[in-house]
């Protein structure tokens, strides 16, 4: 894998590229331009950048107003203060009106590190996923992040793009296809399918490589779009592999694991496990220590894979 990069940096670079191509693109921030990385756009296009100060709720409603005048607005802050603090503004001013606002929300998950649990969103995907009309994108690396920004700009209506602070592994290539709502099978396998998003895609790939050495064939699916979920892919992987593991840097409640569970329930009876944060808040620490503490590692993914495979052989799956 290539050198590590953070998805927030890629987000900032993509906005600046997009701004050069499309004069209708505006960017909003709430005093975090140097953290969300909208600062690049702000420097290049100061007349199309709006800093709303530390007032996220106001930023969301004002972005709706701007968007309804024909602009594509990218509004950025930390995931917690966007999806959490300004939830009802996102719901009523943006989603309810179908405003063309893209939420680029950063510092999601324990990878935000030392700032601690008050700043690490572990529930943002769940909150955004239940909003009618909201698309939810969790790119797995810096390369995919740029594609996600451009793809989100192409569609009319709200979208949430989850970005991270930590430089992380690159697991896709410039030529890897990206289409909103279309999962990418990064690795074929027969015994278990790992469906992952965000930084856990890399851990899934590491886990699959380690499992291969143990004689287990694990598929890896990059589910970069949590909503609309590629349900056909989920069911196809269940049919092909007979066991599913999800992996996400988010609560196991309501995020990717929850979405996949909703799809499997009633459609496919296969052993299933969710790797993610087990209904806990985050805390301060170095990201790598936090990943171990919260079970967000390739080892945790491997263990989950072995569990579901054991259950499969104990009780053969019914179709």
């Amino acid at each position: 894998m290539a050198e590590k990069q953070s998805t927030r940096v890629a987000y900032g670079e993509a906005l600046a590229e997009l701004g050069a191509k499309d004069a209708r693109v505006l960017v909003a921030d709430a005093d975090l331009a140097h953290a969300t990385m909208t600062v690049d756009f702000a420097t290049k296009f100061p007349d199309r950048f709006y800093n709303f100060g530390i007032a996220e709720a106001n930023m969301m409603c004002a972005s709706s107003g701007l968007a309804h005048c024909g602009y594509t607005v990218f509004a950025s802050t930390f995931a917690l203060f966007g999806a959490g603090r300004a939830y009802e503004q996102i719901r009523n001013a943006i989603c309810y009106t179908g405003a063309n606002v893209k939420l680029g929300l950063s510092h999601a998950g324990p990878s935000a590190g030392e700032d601690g649990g008050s700043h690490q969103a572990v529930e943002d995907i769940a909150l955004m996923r239940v909003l009618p009309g909201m698309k939810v994108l969790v790119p797995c690396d810096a390369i995919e992040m740029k594609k996600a920004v451009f793809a989100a700009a192409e569609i009319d209506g709200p979208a949430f793009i989850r970005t991270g602070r930590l430089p992380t592994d690159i697991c896709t290539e410039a030529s890897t296809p990206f289409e909103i709502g279309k999962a990418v099978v990064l690795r074929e396998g027969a015994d278990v399918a790992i469906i992952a998003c965000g930084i856990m895609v890399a851990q899934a790939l590491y886990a699959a490589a380690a499992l291969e050495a143990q004689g287990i064939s694990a598929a890896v699916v990059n589910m970069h779009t949590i909503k609309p979920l590629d349900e056909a892919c989920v069911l196809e992987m269940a049919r092909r592999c007979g066991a599913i593991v999800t992996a996400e840097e988010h609560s196991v409640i309501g995020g990717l694991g929850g979405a996949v569970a909703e799809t499997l329930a009633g459609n496919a009876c296969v052993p299933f496990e969710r790797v993610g944060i087990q209904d806990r808040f985050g805390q301060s620490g170095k990201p790598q220590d936090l990943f171990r503490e919260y079970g967000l590692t390739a080892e945790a993914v491997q263990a989950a894979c072995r569990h579901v495979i054991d259950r499969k052989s104990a009780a053969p799956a019914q179709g």
Partner: protein
Amino acid sequence: MTQIQENKARQIRADILRMLFACQSGHPGGSLSSVEILLALYDNVLRYDPQNRDWPERDRLVLSKGHGCPTLYAVLADKGFFPREKLWTLRQLGSILQGHPDMRKTPGVDASTGSLGQGLSISLGYALAGKRPEHHFRVFCIVGDGELQEGLIWEAAMAASHYRLHNLTVILDYNGLQIDGANEQVMSLGDISEKFRAFGWETLTADGHDVDAITAALNAPVGEKPRFVLCPTVKGKGVSFMENACCWHGRPMTQEQYDDAMREMGC
């Protein structure tokens, strides 16, 4: 107020009562208090074209106190945005007229409001757009007194002054009552104009039931600052048993009450 203005205001009030009686729900008090404010806007101030509703350079009107939407609907119907018969479908399943304004369903409605405090912040976004080089329009936002208790209002007030949004005007329908009682009992507003001045706004006052006075305040030459116009009003204005009565914030009328109210409208 001329006789023509008074007749028009009475007709709008009668429409409001008929709409609210038909659906047996909704908010009569705060609808009746903003009749003259909306007539001033649509008769004398706003630039708009009912035949070209999406005209990018139209002035925007945001009813932040969205529960008062029957008044907006009655005025929009009167101005030809949609057939008047639609008014009697208010709050019914499938109606273009929702219980709170919905810009995706109602022709002429510029913002979906009802979640109090959001309308001013949405107006801020419109005003930022209206000041961009490619645009030139004004934005008017009607707020209720109770919703000034929302923190979001003050986030928007600070930003409007920071961005020198002289194209933004807030109109306060100051009837002094909210659901649980008088503002002063529930959560005092204090000297509300002084608060807006402290946030960098120009402030004016106009009788909220005098179309000419409201018009003069809204059409006064625009300066450097956003404008706040305090309009003292009477909640339930025009229907004697509803005036200044907190209980008529949101209560359905009986047949007898409706007949009495319509008689007062000369119907």
